[in-house]
Structures are given as structure tokens and as C-alpha cells.
């Protein structure tokens, strides 16, 4: 049967060549679309790892103070923190670096951890951050007063970094160097999706913002109690500008920042889906038209088959399988190209993503081809042998 189908296709290789090319290109388009969809979906499925509802980012700049004295500065910022914390609507306050959750800022550096060269995101957070966003520590602990005056700076790493550098071994107490300074790992934290829902976890390490470096951050996170009303934001703004009269103060909600951050991924994806959807409709219509036309040219052949006893279903099956063989040829060729992506590790995505996308796009093309072939097949099965043979 299959051999026979191949023969039929080979006999019309010129006509079928274009169909094969068309299916091949559609397959490659769908492979690209599915790769992205699968990749984003796997990232989306991961837990957030922290709480962002009712958390606000407060950024301030140009807070000009008369003093350059470190101790006075530290005291000033400590009292600022205490004042905000003392507001009844506030649950927790933490000074953070510019690499705060869902912000557009990125800061990363290249370090060698346990002989593995790693490009990692660096964060700066103070002792209250863990409580504020409710981090999940996998082992060890978050920063605390215990770290005051420690000889080597404490550092917390995330699960992805630990996995890469230490594998299954215990990382707590291990040391490595950042910018020439020794640091000691005191905790491993579950991955935080603080760059957006669709972004894969990245290697990250967290440095402690100590009391005397509060002044250098320029940003704080404020967690408010759910019962605080909408009016609280202007109240907080008044309190802050009262303490920092010369500064530019901006308050942003993490829920809104998350939406903005996600739309950076989502908007191009939606545009891509619309364009791909249109291309597929286009291809489906074209395929449908060409198959339909081909059937009408083969009336005599089909009529003869009916005359010698083939049932209507047999004819449908023949038309559909012919198209499926044609599709298989292009899928075989397409898979050969597609499989190069995980093999050559292009774009640095996990191989599982590519393979899932490969299977999905093969199924998609088969589905599309079957849908496009069934109606012309039905049409062909309705051909009456007497009429068809009479025409010739």
C-alpha cells in the first residue's frame, strides 16, 4: 500500500515538489512558534518563589544631605526605615539595590564559583527582605544581625546557581570570590521569578545591604497591610518627601510592574501568534484548494477504482494517506533541520523544550493536512463510476 502511494507521488514529483516545500516551511514556522510557547509555558508553570501583592517599590534620587559622615548617614537612613516601618499600614520595609523585583535594571557580573565560570545576577537586599517577600530558604538562612562584623561577607545564592556550581553537594559554608573579595555562602534560596513570569531562572546571588551601606541603595521595598486603603499611598509619599525634601520620590506597585515586565515578553509573542496564525490559515486554504483541484483531474482513475469495488471510505483513506505520505516526506526533512537546534545547542534552550516542540509541530502539521484532505477525499468518494468513466 505505502509503496504504491510512493509510486503515485513519485509519478507526479514536479507537482508535489511545491507542496512538499510548502509543508516544510510551515513546519519550520510552527516549530519556531511551538518552541517559544513551550519555553514560556515551562517558565510560567514554575512557582513565583516570592510574594509581590501589596508590595511597593520606592525609588528616590538626589537626596542631598549636608553631611558626608558615614555614621550620620547610616543613622539618618536607619531612622527613615524605622519611621516608615512604624506606620500602622506598613508590614515590612527593606532597602534594596537597583536590581529590585520587576525593575528594568539589571546588574550582573562574572565570577568563578567552585571552579565553574558563571555569569550571575547580583542583588543587594537587607535583612528584612526575606520576611518582606516571604522567600523560601532551601537550606541555611537569610542575612541577620549574626552577620554584623563577619570576617568574610555573607552571601545567599539561588537554587539554580547552587545546582550549577555544587550539584548535589552541600553549599553552605563554601567560599568564593566576587570582585576580588572572599564571600561565604550562608544560605540557598528557592529561585525567584523576579524578572517576570516568562523568564527562565537565572544564576543569582544576593549580597547583604548593611546598616552603613543603606545610603548607597536609592531604593526600598515597602510591604503594606492588605487593609490599607488607596489613600495610604499619598500619605506615604508625604512622609517620605517630608524626610527627604530635596529628593525625587517615585512609588510603584509591584503588581503593576509585573504586568509591564510580562508584556515585554507577551506583546511580541502575541504578534508572532497572530502572524503565524494567518500564515497557517493561508497554507491550509492553499493546500485544500490544490488537493481539491487534483482530485477533479483524477476523476477517471477514481471512477475506475470505484467500478472495480473500492468503497467510498477506501477512496477517502487513499486520498488522506497520499497526503500524509507527502507530509511525512517534508516532516522528515524538517525534523532533520529542527533536530540540529538541540544538537548544536543554538539559543541555549533546554533540549526537552525543542523535543516537545518538535513532537507538537509534527502532530500539528499532520492534523492540518488530514483536515485539508478529508473534504476533497469525501468529494472524490462521491464520484459515480458510471459518470466518471462515461466522460472519457
Amino acid at each position, binding site marked *: 500500500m505505502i509503496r504504491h502511494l510512493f509510486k503515485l507521488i513519485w509519478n507526479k514529483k514536479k507537482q508535489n515538489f*511545491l507542496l512538499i516545500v510548502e509543508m516544510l516551511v510551515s513546519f519550520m514556522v510552527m516549530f519556531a512558534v511551538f518552541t517559544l510557547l513551550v519555553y514560556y509555558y515551562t517558565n510560567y508553570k514554575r512557582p513565583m518563589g516570592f510574594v509581590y501583592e501589596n508590595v511597593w517599590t520606592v525609588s528616590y534620587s538626589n537626596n542631598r544631605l549636608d553631611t558626608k559622615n558615614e555614621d550620620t548617614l547610616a543613622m539618618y537612613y536607619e531612622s527613615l526605615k524605622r519611621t516608615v516601618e512604624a506606620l500602622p499600614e506598613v508590614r515590612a520595609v527593606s532597602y534594596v539595590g537597583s536590581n529590585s523585583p520587576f525593575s528594568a535594571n539589571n546588574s550582573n557580573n562574572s565570577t568563578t564559583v567552585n571552579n565553574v565560570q558563571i555569569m550571575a545576577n547580583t542583588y543587594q537586599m537587607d535583612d528584612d527582605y526575606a520576611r518582606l517577600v516571604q522567600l523560601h530558604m532551601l537550606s541555611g538562612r537569610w542575612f541577620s544581625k549574626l552577620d554584623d562584623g563577619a570576617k568574610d561577607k555573607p552571601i545567599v545564592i539561588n537554587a539554580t546557581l547552587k545546582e550549577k556550581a555544587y550539584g548535589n553537594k552541600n553549599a553552605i559554608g563554601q567560599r568564593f570570590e566576587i570582585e576580588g573579595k572572599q564571600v561565604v555562602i550562608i544560605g540557598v534560596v528557592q529561585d525567584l521569578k523576579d524578572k517576570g513570569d516568562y523568564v527562565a531562572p537565572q544564576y543569582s546571588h544576593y549580597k547583604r545591604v548593611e546598616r552603613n551601606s543603606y545610603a548607597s541603595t536609592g531604593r526600598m521595598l515597602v510591604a503594606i497591610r492588605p487593609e490599607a486603603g488607596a489613600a495610604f499611598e499619598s500619605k506615604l509619599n508625604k512622609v517620605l518627601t517630608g524626610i527627604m525634601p530635596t*529628593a525625587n*520620590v*517615585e512609588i510603584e506597585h509591584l503588581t503593576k510592574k509585573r504586568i509591564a515586565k510580562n508584556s515585554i515578553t507577551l506583546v511580541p509573542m502575541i504578534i508572532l501568534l497572530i502572524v503565524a496564525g494567518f500564515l497557517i490559515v*493561508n*497554507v491550509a486554504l492553499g493546500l485544500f*484548494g490544490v488537493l481539491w483541484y*487534483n482530485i477533479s483531474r483524477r476523476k477517471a482513475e477514481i471512477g475506475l477504482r470505484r467500478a472495480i469495488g473500492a468503497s467510498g471510505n477506501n477512496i477517502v483513506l487513499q486520498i488522506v494517506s497520499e497526503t500524509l505520505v507527502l507530509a511525512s516526506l517534508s516532516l522528515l526533512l524538517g525534523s532533520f533541520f529542527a533536530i540540529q537546534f538541540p544538537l548544536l545547542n543554538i539559543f541555549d534552550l533546554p533540549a526537552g523544550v525543542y523535543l516537545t516542540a518538535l513532537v507538537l509541530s509534527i502532530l500539528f502539521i499532520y492534523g492540518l493536512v488530514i483536515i485539508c484532505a478529508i473534504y476533497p477525499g469525501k468529494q472524490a468518494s462521491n464520484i459515480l463510476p458510471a459518470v466518471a468513466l462515461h466522460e472519457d
Partner: protein
Amino acid sequence: MLTNYFKIAIAVLKRRKFFTFISLFGISITLTIIIVLTAFMDFLFSAAAPETKRDRSLYVNMLRLEHTTKSSRQTGPTSFYYMDHYVGSMKTPEKVAIFSMFMPTNTYINNKKLVINIKHTNAAYWAVEEYKFLEGKPYTPQQINNAEKVTVISEETKKQYFGDVPSVVGKFLETDNEQYRVIGVVNNVPVTMIYSYADIYLPYTLSKDNIKSTGFQGKFMGILLARSKDDLPAMQQEYQQMIKRIPLDSTMGYNKITGFADTYLAGFTRVFLGDESSTGVTKFLLIVGLVLFLFMLLPTINLVNINSSRIMERSSEIAVRKAFGASSGTLAIQFIVENLILTLLGGIIGVALSVIVLWLFNNSQLIPDAVLAINYKVLLATLGACLFFGLLSGVYPAWRMSRLQVVTALKSN
């Protein structure tokens, strides 16, 4: 002759309505997407108010400070001092507009938050950029020197802050604990024009940044306006020489300064695709071209496929014409012309569709104040795409048709 082709083409299109629908559907939607994309690119990169003088402007948006032995590097906007003292002393530019990047601040009216983006500018800014003043006027050099707390606001800010009132000049607007007297209202600018977008404009002397600091990096950018378009290369040269002459000493923490005065497009492409030796414009155009080509590939193959099928349907007609002496060339040309008529028809539908899409986009306020329109440049690009489409999808079927054997074609019917 052409009218004849046209009549035949229409007759053929009417014969198999389903095929005609598929072809026109594919062509028109493909062209719609191309038109919308072109309109968007045109909106991003061609001159529009207030940046009407883009063709004789150069943009300075960053400076890189490097230490070649310590391999440390900082890139970012420049300080006011650098713009004023170094760039301001250049001879070729007619005017140098100095302005800060827009920076958000919060203000609260009846407990409702309003985000106000602030931009600090010098006086030349108002001459280089051509804002349309709905009321009032820009601040004068005198007012800047006196650090008067005056501001020019956008129409949207006026609506948001003051509500529906006829005139707001002379009223006070408060943000970041400061009161500013409104002296002018200008048209809104879409946020995609990063050099001119802001909600309120303030004299640079009110900047909370330390504008007297003699460092090189800060929050300011500049537009160098040449007297004519021909002066641009000379201006770029002078800019490079000016940077070379900047004195550096060992206390500074860096020993190399790199910076560029680029045209509008190059100012962006250099950040993403360029480096010191190239602006990245060529790379950008190549990428755009490649994406367009790949996008058009599938609809084209589809059209070739449909056309090849349809042409076989007409084998008897072709065979008869051949038998009566029509050359292969004539037949091929006839078919290509027919196909061009089909694509142009698709193009007309495509233009109609894109008018609808652009109207929807402009009304959706996806990008506030963005107005995308079809102009002659966009239409020209569409016509080009039509021709490309029509030729590419017509040539192969026409070639196959012209090779048809008269005898077999006549026999089969």
C-alpha cells in the same frame, strides 16, 4: 493588448471563485501586515512634529568612559557640564539643545496618583524642537538664569491635573514638593519619541542633579542642529576631534572617552547592533529585509502552488493559442501580467484592510498619542511588495505553462 489581458484575467478570476478567494485572501493579508509594519517603522523613524528637523540634527545620547588597563567601563548619558562646556563650544552646530531624559515623579490629587515625567532643558531646546504651543510660550534664557520655577506642560497633563479648563497659564502645578508656575501648554508627544517626550518641561537650572559637577556622566543628552544637511559630516568630524582634545588625568579612574554624534536612526542602532567602528544601520536594514523575506516566503510558495494548479486547468486554451502560433514568450508574459493584476487587486484590498487596522490601532491608545498613517512612502513600499509578490509567484507557473506540449495538451481534452 493589455485591455485584452485584463479582460481575460477577470474572466479567469470569476471562473473559479474559491481559488480567487484563496489567492486574494493570502495576498491581501500579507500586504496588510507589510503595510502596517511599514507605517509603524515610518512612525518610528521619519521626522514628525516636534522633531521636524531630524534630517539636519545629530544626537548625542551617551558617552563611554573606559579604563583600558583595569578593564572597567561605564556607559550612559552625559553630564550637563559636558554638553554645555565641551559640546556647546563646537563651531559647526547652529544650536545645541541640551535636555535630561524624562524622569518620573509622583503627585497626588485627591489621593489619586498622577505620574508626571519631568524633563529639564536649556533655552535652545525650544528652537531645535518645534513644539506647537496651544497657549503661552517657552521659558526665556533670562528665566533659566534666574532659576525661576516655571514650567511648560503637555496637553494631557493639563487635562489630568487641572481638568477641563480653558486656560491654565499662570496657575501652579505641584510635584515632588515643589510648586511650578505654568507658562505654556504644548501638544502631546508619543513616548516613542524619547528625546522629546515628557509631561512637564523645566529650566535645567531647577534640576536636582548637580549641574555644576565637572564629571562626564549624568542625565543629559543633546541634539546638535546643523545649518544644513550638508554640514552633518563636518559636524561629526568636529565632534570626534572635540572628544580627542578633552584633557584626562590619572586621578579620573578612566583613560579613554568614546562618544558619537549620530543621526536619528544610527543613534538607536548603535546601542543594539553597532560598535565603535559601525553605526549598525546596515545590519539593522539587513535584519529587517531578512525578516520580511522570510515572512513573505510562505504566502509566495502558496501562491505559486495555487497558480500552477490553475494554469493546468487552462491547458486547452494554451494549447490552442500555441497551435495558432503564439510564442512561449508571449504566453508567459500574458500569464505574468494576469498574475500582476491579481496581486494589485489584492494590494487594493490590503490597503483598505490596513486603513481599518491602523484606525483600530490609533484608537486603541496602545501607544498613547501615536498616530500611524499611510503616506506616499508606505504606499510606495506596498507597490514594491505587490510587484515582488506578483513576479515571484507568476514566473515559475508561466515557465511551466510555456513548456506545455501542444499535442498532449490538446489530446487530454
